[in-house]
């Protein structure tokens, strides 16, 4: 009697846990913190999570395929710098955006090929590319922020549509596409199969290399796009931005129930993970929690997320 009841609780939690936590967290912040519900704060909150959200859309595929990508923070910075430099040189916004996205694609392809083709551990591969790309960002920018002159470009990050900032719309669109891709396309289901058991997937005739390369390429492009949006928002390309961003994105995904061992991911839960992290951050700011303590809190949340992942995993055994 006891055991089934507990199991069903665990199952319910696995199914609805994070959205539930999100609702409770949001309600308690709304009730307990002044200004939390103000339009300005909510808009700021949405804008703050939009970056994490965008990159989480591809990171969840990466994790679901049993891999990792630590290079996204550096790609955000590198893409922003490249967009700024190219725009200033050519005077063309399109050229700047295209160069940045192309850069992200190349980094993603290299990551993907090294991981999938050469069989190098994703952690090490992307740890290396993370540093290489960060270095390139500094080299291209000459070590300091590159201001952008092209004003029309600022609409991308700074514009507002129907009262909601453009980056938030973009993030919502990304999540919709990610959800569709994961659940309704062959690539999505193959991703889960590859993450769940790469060798079984290979022997079942799935092109594991192609799946992985596609995911890393998309991830690189998405991180670059996030970098472009950020550059537009801050009207410059900054080589030292988004340090530790990759951990934030991975935390959000893991908090959203994406298994670190691959094969399990739900987009709705990842959205919850992203929002939970954002709200906690926002609440700490509103409550004037010192920055140093915010690091501690974020680390503890990541640890909690990993423990939940582990717990879910052992429950499944």
């Amino acid at each position, binding site marked *: 009697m006891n*055991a089934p009841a507990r199991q069903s609780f665990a199952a319910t939690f696995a199914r609805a846990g994070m959205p539930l936590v999100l609702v409770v967290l949001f309600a308690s912040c709304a009730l307990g913190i002044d200004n939390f519900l103000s339009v300005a704060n909510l808009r700021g909150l949405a804008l703050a999570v939009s970056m994490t959200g965008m990159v989480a859309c591809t990171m969840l595929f990466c994790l679901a395929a049993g891999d990792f990508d630590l290079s996204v923070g550096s790609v955000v910075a590198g893409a922003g710098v490249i967009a700024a430099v190219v725009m200033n040189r050519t005077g063309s916004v399109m050229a700047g955006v295209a160069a940045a996205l192309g850069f992200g694609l190349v980094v993603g392809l290299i990551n993907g090929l090294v991981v999938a083709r050469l069989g190098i551990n994703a952690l090490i591969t992307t740890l290396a590319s993370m540093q290489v790309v960060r270095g390139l960002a500094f080299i291209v920018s000459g070590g300091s922020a590159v201001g952008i002159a092209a004003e029309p470009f600022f609409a991308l990050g700074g514009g507002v549509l129907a009262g909601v900032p453009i980056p938030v719309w973009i993030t919502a669109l990304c999540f919709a596409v990610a959800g569709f891709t994961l*659940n*309704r*396309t*062959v*690539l999505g*289901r*193959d991703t*889960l*199969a590859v993450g*769940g*058991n790469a*060798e*079984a*997937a*290979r*022997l*079942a*005739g*799935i*092109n594991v290399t192609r799946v992985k390369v596609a995911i890393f390429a998309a991830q690189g492009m998405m991180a670059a796009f996030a970098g472009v949006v950020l550059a537009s928002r801050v009207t410059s390309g900054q080589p030292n931005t988004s340090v530790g961003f990759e951990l934030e994105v991975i935390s959000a995904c893991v908090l959203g129930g994406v*298994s670190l061992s*691959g*094969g*399990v991911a739900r987009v709705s839960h990842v959205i919850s993970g992203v929002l939970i992290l954002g709200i906690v951050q926002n609440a700490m700011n509103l409550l004037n929690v010192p920055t140093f303590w915010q690091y501690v809190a974020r680390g503890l949340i990541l640890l909690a997320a990993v423990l939940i992942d582990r717990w879910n995993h052992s429950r*499944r055994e």
Partner: protein
Amino acid sequence: MSGAATPSIPGVAALAFAGVGMEFPGVRALDDVSFEVRAGSIHALMGENGAGKSTLLKILGGAHRPTAGEVRLDGRIVEFTGTSAALSAGVAVIYQELHLVPAMSVAENLFLGHLPARLGVVDRRQLATDARRQLELIGEDIAPNTPVGELPLAQRQMVEIAKALTRGARILAFDEPTSSLSEREVRRLFSIIRDLRARGCAILYVSHRMEEIFALCDRITILRDGRHVETAALASLTRDAVVERMVGRRLADIYRHETRPAVGPGLAVEALTGPGISAPVSFSASAGEILGIFGLVGAGRTELLRLIYGAARSTGGTLHVAGNKVEVRGPRDALRAGIVLCPEDRKKEGIVPVRSVLENLNLSARRRVAKGGMLINETWERRNAEERIGQLRIRTPSARALIRTLSGGNQQKVILGRWLSETVKVVLLDEPTRGIDVGAKSEIYAIMQQLARDGVCVVMVSSELPEILGISDRILVMRGGAIAAEVARSVATEAGLLKLALPVENAVATA
């Protein structure tokens, strides 16, 4: 050698299981198992995969605590809280995968956990002397300072035995100790085990190999589905009697072999070479034929199937399927040619455990049936899954259940079901019934026969002789990475096949 020869109390069994039960969530691995093992005897423990042998050994070794009943040593109830508790009570379980540290020396391994030391510094000289003495006791001439990782497997096993004796073990349990030994190494091991018996040790010996059991053991206990079936003197039983008690039914009823006409060319392999193959392999099998490939572990059977399927890259040779030459550079080429593989290790290579039965069934057909090659065809996938579940009688709560929650036999049926959506001409099965209960085995044999009746060429690799003899129309024997012989069903016997499969050390010596 402190306790190895401790005399037992006359009339009391050295080791007794009394009403031992073990329940894991949802599974009853052992149910009311009682039997005794006498000092100075070698006691066989037999049973099918999943019969509960390993669980029993783990209880004996202190790795599990029974949920019911008790274990008695010399009549005293013992409750081991861990492996070290079992060891200090004089019980050593020698598992298939040895618990030695490869990078450390033989001597260090022997005394691991209680190295002779002065003020915390290991006394190397003392260690070497002690180790040499221990090794001499089992008649092994191994330099104590050799790293264990450099020893051949057989010698590592000897080190493991010596290590057990170092701790004063007088009850030793062996779990399939000969599975990767040569014939000569087996003889050596047996003489050591007999020597241990003569010194009064009680020995529990787990093996699948009938020959060994009958050559070595005095008594036997047979388990089936976690229950005790019989404990008897081996002399009172025939081999067939043992097997029938293990499986719980008459042998002919399990396989139901039937003769079928060959209906044209199936698979033809010519001069295939690659990793794990020592001499170019050529053979052919007709459509509608079940070809059994027998061999010991390491004979290259699995490697051969993997090469044919393209799971590993071949370095030469040609394949023909149904008379047409095919190039296989990877699994996808094989699938296109109509070759499918049910791999040896279901968990590692067959299923995606965290996904549903439906997804596992549709794993390979998915892309082919997708709309525009990209969008999932959910209607087709659902219908296909329901159809296969019904057709193969896959026992699952629903198509959406995680495949890991299914029994081994049903997981295997899912893998088979996955291939039934393809245009199959050749089915390669690698140990298709390993770890599967008899009921599901019988169903899988029936599926194999049905495939053959439908004109599919079925190639099955197995190390279980009864299965090879029971289901194959024709048998190939592999040895040392090459095909050693081809045997017709009508003339095949267990002893004959085994003889062909064993390494021919003597022949090499005289050559």
